[in-house]
């Protein structure tokens, strides 16, 4: 049990409404000092609304949010100099260079001793320091965004979907930077819909779906507590397979690759399912039986895929 003094973020019964739409539905959670906290959920789950309320960009409809012990609705002026934010879809001034951009944000925070070269080195942008923002690739822009979030040496860093839209190489480059933050002992609030990101970096995870938190814990705890069953994955191009499994009383779900994922209590169920498919004259291409990972835990918990859209939609 941690004391409130060790919590950099405390959220209690937070609700946000946009007219009739309930975006965040009475959620509560805490983030401890020095930990990387991953806030997971599919698009539209309420992640960004929640993080923007904590960052003081939005106001809550009800509930209490304390950041560094201060009420976010009343102490914006005191909070802002102590946090660093990489907002979702970060962008900057097109014709300003990397170095000038960092100098600009440093001046906004009235920092006199910002180590601009150190920040440029931290995000590995030394070769691009004189490059204008518009000429940077997606991954380089995100790395610059992270460097900007650190110009005021913040106590809490918010990274809202820092790798969304990046290709795998650029994503790994950003992960390296985040790993560096973790090693520096920064408290990091990471919003993402990439499970591997959370598994790799996070000390604690909260999963949000349709405005409500449906699970919290460390990645290992979440997998352990939800992995009482095995996960059978069927790769099938036969549309009948999904119906056959469902008619047997299981609760299959489709992942983003259209694979059928079925939680099973015992290994005998695997044989029952395979026999039923064979008896029905249906077919599958491949199968896999193993304990689920975090993404599959999410799939089991919500029945929703974390990411929307095909992987080829990512851009560098």
């Amino acid at each position: 049990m941690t004391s409130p003094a060790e919590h950099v973020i405390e959220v209690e019964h937070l609700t946000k409404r946009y007219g009739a739409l309930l975006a965040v539905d009475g959620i509560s959670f805490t983030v401890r000092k020095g930990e990387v906290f991953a806030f997971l959920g599919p698009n539209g789950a309420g992640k960004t609304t929640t993080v923007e309320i904590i960052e003081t960009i939005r106001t809550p409809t009800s509930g209490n949010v304390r950041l560094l012990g201060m009420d976010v609705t009343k102490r914006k002026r005191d909070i802002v100099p102590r946090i660093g934010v990489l907002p979702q879809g970060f962008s900057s001034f097109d014709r300003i260079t990397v170095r000038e951009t960092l100098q600009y944000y440093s001046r906004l925070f009235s920092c006199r001793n910002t180590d601009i070269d150190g920040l440029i080195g931290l995000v590995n942008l030394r070769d691009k320091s004189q490059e204008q923002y518009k000429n940077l690739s997606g991954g380089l822009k995100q790395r610059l965004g992270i460097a900007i979030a650190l110009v005021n040496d913040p106590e809490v860093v918010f990274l809202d979907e820092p790798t969304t839209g990046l290709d795998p190489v650029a994503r790994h480059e950003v992960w390296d930077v985040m790993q560096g933050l973790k090693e520096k002992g920064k408290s990091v609030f990471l919003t993402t819909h990439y499970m591997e990101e959370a598994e790799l970096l996070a000390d604690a995870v909260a999963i949000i779906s349709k405005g409500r938190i449906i699970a919290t814990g460390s990645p290992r705890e979440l997998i352990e507590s939800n992995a009482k069953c095995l996960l059978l994955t069927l790769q099938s191009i036969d549309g009948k397979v999904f119906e056959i499994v469902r008619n047997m009383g299981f609760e299959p779900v489709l992942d983003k690759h259209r694979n059928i994922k079925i939680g099973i209590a015992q290994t005998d169920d695997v044989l029952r399912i395979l026999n039923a498919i064979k008896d029905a004259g249906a077919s599958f291409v491949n199968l896999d039986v193993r304990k689920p990972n975090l993404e599959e835990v999410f799939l089991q918990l919500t029945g929703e895929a974390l990411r929307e859209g095909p992987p080829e939609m990512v851009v560098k």
Partner: protein
Amino acid sequence: MNPRIIRANLVVKLKSFYRERSAMFFTLAFPIILILVFGTIFMSEDNVAYHLCVQDLDQTNSSQQSVKTLEINGKFKITKVDPAVNATQYVRDNKVNLVLVIPKGYEKLLMQRMMLNDFTTSVTLTYIYDPSSSSVTTKMEILNAVLAGVNQEMSGKPPFLRSVVRSILTRKYRFIEFFIPGIIAMSVMTMTLFGTVDSDTELRQKGVIRKLSTTPITHTDWILSNILHHFILAVISTIAMLLASYAVFSVTLHIDAWLLAFIMLDVVTFVGIGMILTRFVKEAQSAAAAANSISFPMMFLSGSFFPIELMPGFLQNFAKMLPLYYVNEGLRASMVFVDNMAALKDSAVIGVFAAVVFILGTIATKWEETA
């Protein structure tokens, strides 16, 4: 308000502007092009000679002498129309707006009047004109004045009413010199309004504003740096316009602190209006349309291009509700008439307007919930 933040923001804006060469070129070049185009038009208007077609059906010495008389004071350049052609058809075919027809028998009737003192005799000259032409009325009025002068001359008696021209100005000004202050006011408005709406909408749409809302920069810092940015650009643009008009048209105007004051008031007013518009413009693509909806009526109705006295009464009243009207009037009062009291009155009106729209614009600027 934090001067360091305002300076940092100003530097970024100026660098961005300087590095966007095409935008910089058009921002500075557009008003100069306007001055060159309109200046050329107005310079020729100061010594204007209208084109007049004359069909002399009489073809006598007297009728030809009368045609020459029309050319004497330089108001008309005459084109002779063949007496055999149909004058109405000639107007249609040749896209001219007026043909003066001297009837057959002109000399005979003239002699009858002059030699025989038959004052009942008169000649009717016919104006065949195209009413769709905007300049034909002016042309006919000048022609009437010339004819009245000829009639007066022929009466052999001195006129009872005479007139003398006395300008309210100590020196003679050309129309271009009245025009330049209007162009300065108009181009500062355009630059500021479009700059504010375009830039803020684009930055909001791209998410830069959302990022800024997580930093200590305040709305006041942002708006003040916007005002300073546009003020610097407006001063540079004004200097360029004054130099161009001096170099090409030898325009000299009185320049004092009022010029800077009116540029600043112009900037504050249209930054304020721009901020209000930005609240309602969601997409960068619609920003230009929104700015046009404000700038076009201002441009044409507030006396930048032509005096509002030419407009119908209700439009004149409407023009006096437009802020640009007072910037135009104020700049003319200070730069042309050197009338400090008039400039003070105009600055008071535009100052109140600027303060109101600035406050409304500040209230309308919301980064948080719209981010």
